[in-house]
């Protein structure tokens, strides 16, 4: 497996990377989605702009209200970060569930969400975590709410001439809990269904809920129907069960040889129930 020829360009800063980036070029971060596709010649860019050596985007910073994860942080470094474990445990946990050890050592959060694989773990988790995506371009930085970021099948709000620089995760409130559970496709270990749930409670009553899925449809999405059904109620088994029936309401459910539409929709309900029941 040999990719087509391309030019390799190493960037030492985001500014340099943006300046280097030509129309038919691709950004190379961890490379774990891009390089295999290039070896299969599904993709033949003119040049790769390697941002994996830019240390400035690898940091994980603990700010007042948020933890800012550099886009170049690897899944491994995220999974081990003490601040995240304390303030956003779901994020640290999911980082340890992605791919395998080697993939986690190289794969980055920025690369993963820019790629926006419909079965990747991060999109659902970031949706539930209410993250913000910080994007740089020649015109400066912009911040995109995660709800506006994932647009469709491998499609995001990121333009061709932009680079994700960081992801801001709000710290989990004292009354909130979150978790991510997935039913894996046995060969690739990507999610057939992944459900991320973040719930805040006041005196046993759900005051806020963000429930998001990956793997189910052509893009990660928030299950508003579940969120609304949960709000104002308790987390009794019956209530959860009823609420989770709306896991795929209004969504085009994917189908493949591992899970038909019907089965996948069923799994979405089951995994929503399992994730929420843990909280």
């Amino acid at each position, binding site marked *: 497996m040999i990719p087509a020829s391309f030019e390799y360009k190493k960037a030492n800063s985001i500014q340099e990377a943006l300046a280097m980036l030509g129309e038919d070029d691709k950004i190379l971060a961890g490379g774990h989605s891009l390089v295999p596709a290039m070896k299969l010649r599904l993709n033949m860019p003119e040049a790769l702009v390697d941002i994996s050596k830019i240390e400035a985007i690898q940091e994980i910073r603990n700010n007042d209200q948020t933890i800012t994860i550099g886009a170049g942080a690897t899944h491994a470094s995220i999974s081990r970060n003490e601040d995240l474990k304390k303030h956003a445990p779901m994020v640290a946990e999911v980082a340890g569930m992605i791919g395998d050890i080697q993939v986690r050592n190289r794969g980055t959060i920025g690369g993963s969400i820019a790629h926006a694989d419909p079965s990747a773990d991060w999109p659902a988790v970031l949706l539930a975590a209410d993250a913000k995506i910080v994007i740089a371009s020649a015109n400066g930085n912009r911040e995109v709410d995660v709800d506006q970021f994932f647009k469709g099948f491998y499609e995001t709000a990121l333009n061709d001439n932009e680079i994700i620089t960081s992801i801001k995760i709000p710290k989990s409130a004292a009354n909130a809990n979150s978790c991510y559970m997935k039913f894996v496709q046995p060969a690739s270990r990507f999610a057939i269904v992944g459900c991320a749930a973040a719930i805040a409670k006041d005196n046993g009553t759900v005051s806020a809920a963000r429930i998001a899925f990956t793997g189910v449809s052509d893009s990660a999405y928030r299950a508003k129907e579940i969120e609304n059904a949960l709000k104002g109620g308790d987390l009794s088994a019956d209530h959860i069960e009823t609420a989770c029936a709306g896991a795929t309401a209004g969504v085009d459910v994917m189908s493949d040889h591992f*899970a038909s539409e019907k089965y996948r929709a069923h799994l979405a309900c089951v995994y929503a129930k399992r994730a929420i029941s843990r909280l």
Partner: protein
Amino acid sequence: MSFIGKSVKRIEDKRFLTGKGKYTDDIKLVGMTHAHIVRSPYAHAKVLSIDTAAAKAHDGVVAVFVGSDIEGIVGVPTGWQVNFKNGDTMKEPAHPLLVRDNVRHVGDAVAVVIAETKEIARDAADLVEVDYDVMDAVTDPKKATAPGAPQVHPDAPNNICFDWELGNPVEEVDAALASAHHVTTLEFINQRMIPNAMEPRSAIGHYDDALDKYTLYTSTQNPHLIRLLLCAFVLGIPEHKVRIVSHDVGGGFGSKIFHYTEEALMVWVSKQINRPVKWTSDRSEAFMTDAHGRDHVTTANMGFDKDGKIVALKSDTFANMGAYLATFAPAVPTYLHGTLLQGLYTTPLINVNVVAAFTHTNSVDAYRGAGRPEATYLLERLIDLGALEMDMDPAELRKKNFIPAFDGIEQPGYQTQVALQYDSGDYQPVLDKALEMVGYEDFRAEQKKSLENGKLLGIGFSTYVEACGIAPSAVVGALGARAGLFESAQVRVQPTGKVSVYTGSHSHGQGHETTFVQVVADKLGIPMEDVDLIHGDSDAVAFGMGTYGSRSLAVGGSAIVKSIEKVLEKGAKIAAHKLEASVDDLDYAEGKWTVKGTDRSIAFGDVSLTAYVPHDYPADLEPGLDFSSFYDPANFTYPFGCHIAIVEIDKETGKVKLKRFIAVDDVGNVINPMIVDGQIHGGLAQGIGQALLEGAIYDEGGQLINGSYMDYTMPRADDLPSFEIDRTVTPCPHNPLGVKGAGEAGCIGSTPAVVNAVIDALWKAGHKVKDIQMPMTSERVWNAMNN
């Protein structure tokens, strides 16, 4: 010095552990070029034109060849001929090195690009323009034989390769089934498996014009067999002009038996360009072109009397051959499958019918167990389902039907209804031992209780017998094999008493370099360090038939023992001369000959030195101490065993978790228990993989749609439990080591045990399904619970 029966650590490990193994792709030759093969994206199409001009013009391209360039070479042959039941010969269409008219499966080779680097070859391959007229394809063996199905070869009407029958007359079997107390009927698919040896295939052709000699470096299980086929059947080159080298091979599992077109092609190309040329498969090519396994569509009936005794068995199978016949393909569903349908039961009437069909898919060949897993699956699913249907205990039902013990010495071998005569067997102890290991009664109690708590537990059994140590040449010759299946060995004692052993068996993970050396050192009473094993080079090893069908130790090991016996016989003559005693007065032990009742002795090394420095030497004896032998087995060997699986099913998702796996196997005598256990472990993983995870999926157009590790589910460490294994020992009565073969047992027994466990769990929960198609994905199990 005794080594037999000890878990000696492997001699070959050091090179693998330090990265010094030498696999074919690791080899670089001076002036070597690189090949990339242009393959068909279609399952069935007429090649209208191939334009190679742009590829040829690309910088660094040495040559481009298409099918019409290879004149006078028909293609690669199959190794077996199976006849129709009416006596007609099977259909054997040509398998060209590069297609000439039509492509017949996705991945069929259309052109080959040779370049200075593999990168250039790959780039230039994209410049070869092929114009196809796409036609309809058929991938299912049963549908392929239906009227109106797309035809794979013009010379195989209705896509039938052969229609074969074995056993008792079908009328008798039908009559017995009609009057049976209960008949269990099962229609099922034994799905197509992709062997996935971790080392992708590789071949280097090297023609040396100064010597007019060809060398083929290739990742194969049977170098001499490749030479035989390559020389006699494909290229027509005399054998003394060809050397086949197969150093380290990264797993085979049957998929590296096949004499592949790429091997012959690299040899042919090398002559054309007068330079060495290397081709190494990438994983996508491996999925498309490494011989696949299994792929049977079967309907089977097992009749029982009111006590549960089996009265008759009938099976009808459509076996998929793929587009072209692989080396063992015709033998797998017939002589390695039909002949095993006696199982370890006393079934008095058996009829087997097999229709082999061509389809627009990759070739099917032997895959770990080859035919025997399919036979075991058929029998063990039927008997377990029979037990459920008749509300009998599956273990008890088996015991009721077991063939009574026979050792093949005092009691004769067991003559089956399907041609074979089992050598020795004692079946109940393996079941009893496995039941004890699993804690059967406790499990049934736990199963009942957990059902009350909403958990689905199931237990599945499989008791099997298989035929290994293939095979007696006369027998297989009568059955259509185009080669003998003996093995050769040379034991070359060096002057200093060190020993080089040359075997025609081939090690690709089985640990021959240790096991065989244990046998030699043990028999000669010398340290293992004094013995080296050489294999995988046709210039070094006189002859060989290779490694498959769990034959290496039973056949190859026996050939070594024969040579050792000759060494000791001649050595005794030399020793007797030196000790001035009669041969009859000598004992050989601990590496020396001793005159009985005295302390006068001569060491093995002194005798060997005398043989090469024959100053004081028997008058009528040749110098040297070096013997070759050919061993042709008297019969197959028949290992057997009992496997038990325990599964838990997630009620909400259908996901099956394999909680425990117990295997008690009897592979006859054991030379190295550690290595035998390792062979069993590996076989279990592949058998379990078939039950739960693996299987090729072709779409209706003949595209293999799960041809990558993103979609083909290979078993991973966390899909499997640690295995609980044990053994009984019933020696083989007809070979000198008493060994039966262990390489395939794990894979043969395990698959039905897992499926039976899932079915058991479902029945106990009230879902009376007869079958779930393998691999039993979560969705299939969920559907079985929710339809």
